[in-house]
């Protein structure tokens, strides 16, 4: 498995192929469409992160002192974001998760779109993931 830094770099390289927001958007939608579905039993209030315009269900679990994430959303775009976060964060140690600044979000030039903190749940999602790593 790639390191966290390698995973981030790979995403950055992928996005470097696209010039426009249009292309990046379509790529994220594709990632979203490909995200493996979350087991229905996790799609409940307990696992829900409410954004203003979309909902995310996040399931975190530990295995062998690594942390794994699975998630789903009613928005395909948010599912694309989830796919990116899972690529970078899932299967890492708690320390790795706690310490990363997720600089790829800035580096792929989508900060303004991905960080609409109050419109979609990305920020809350990252917060939840980091909290899980703290426990």
């Amino acid at each position, binding site marked *: 498995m790639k390191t966290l830094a390698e995973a981030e770099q790979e995403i950055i390289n992928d996005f470097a192929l696209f010039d*426009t*927001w*249009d292309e990046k*958007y*379509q790529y994220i*939608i594709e990632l979203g*469409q490909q995200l493996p579905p979350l087991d229905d039993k996790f799609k409940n209030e307990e696992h829900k992160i409410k954004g*203003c*315009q*979309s909902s995310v269900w996040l399931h975190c679990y530990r295995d062998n002192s690594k942390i794994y994430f699975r998630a789903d959303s*009613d*928005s*395909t*775009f948010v599912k694309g974001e989830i796919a990116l976060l899972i690529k970078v964060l899932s299967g890492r140690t708690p320390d790795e998760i706690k310490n990363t600044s997720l600089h790829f979000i800035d580096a792929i030039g989508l900060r303004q*779109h991905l960080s609409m903190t109050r*419109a*979609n749940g990305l920020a809350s999602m990252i917060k939840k993931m980091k909290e899980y790593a703290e426990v």
Partner: protein
Amino acid sequence: MTAEKVKQVSMNSEIIRIRNDFPILQQNVYGKPLIYFDNAATSQKPRQVLQALSEYYSKQNANIHRGVHYLSQQASEMYEQVRVKVRDFIHARSEHEIIFTRGTTESINLVAHSFGNAFVNKGDEIIITAMEHHSNIVPWQLMCETRKAVLKVIPINDNGELLMESFNQMLSERTKLISVVHISNSLGTINPVKQIIEAAHQRSIPVMIDAAQSAIHEEINVAQLDCDFLAMSSHKMLGPTGAGVLYGKMELLEKMPPYQGGGDMIQSVSFNETTYQNPPFRFEAGTQNIADVIAFGAALDYLNALDRKDLLRHEQQLLQYAAEQVQKIDGIRIIGTAKEKASILSFIAEGVNAMDLGMYLDTQGIAVRTGHHCTEPVMDFFKIPGTIRASFLFYNTINEVDAFVSALEKGITLLNKK
């Protein structure tokens, strides 16, 4: 050319002329011409308004009302002149019935607080509708909690129209105030406010009108409507953010206690007894948003110089054309199909998340709004999480609608791929 055609062509050239006054409409977004269909959220501003701001700050800026110096007198005069302009714009009897606020939200909060304190007691009832903006819900909820009053809600039908029978049955001696949105920001419905006011006045119940959306589209005539309060926002009617109006009948305003305390709203202050100015000054505490009120005056001048009836017709054409075209797309359902509608088009696309589609439109330089539009109860009624809303103003064009519809089709196809 037919007369109709001539009219259309001259309308087009009028729209082009108007568009040239709006610097932001000349902009590209992601290399594509901006198509701004988020006018119900806020309108764009003509350069005349920007100039009014710059001019004021470059030539008159001063604090108002008590200054004996030149700048202060100029600024005071200009500020008070806008009160007169607003009076004329909404056909109020006196400029003393015009209170400047931050916007519709604050105007409603002011009434909820001050009218509530003066007139609402335990068990009294306030009536609103099921299609209110949160700004015409939450202030009443807060007030009803404090005053132990009851909030009643006029229900709507599947077209997004008020059930007037229910409304009529709701009226009673306990009803202390009715507050109704003139044009719904999420459905586009134009409510029969005149009829509501007449029914209410038969029982001497005052009525407040939320004109946040209507003030830019319709001619507002408070004398004819005979409403008791009316609220509007500068930023939705070509003016700057941070300014708004509360109109209130003097008979009521006079009986209402102050809302905020501070400079300028007092007659005299001492630690034993403080006395207050008469309306409107009683309700304008502290340094007002002088510059933006003055620039709002420039927005009113700009609106007054237009042929608003013609422009309204143009907006209605945009609405009808857009509705027709959008409905041709598979899976699209329009939310808000009232007979009387303003140029606001809300819809959902089956199986497609509204935000995803809104973001796709954004990639094409098209600005629409998605979500609940601060009217969650409307979404709950229609059992949907939100809609996509395209809201048109007179500076929009049929060509823009075409571009929008074609982007919509592409977006839906893209998002439906699984």
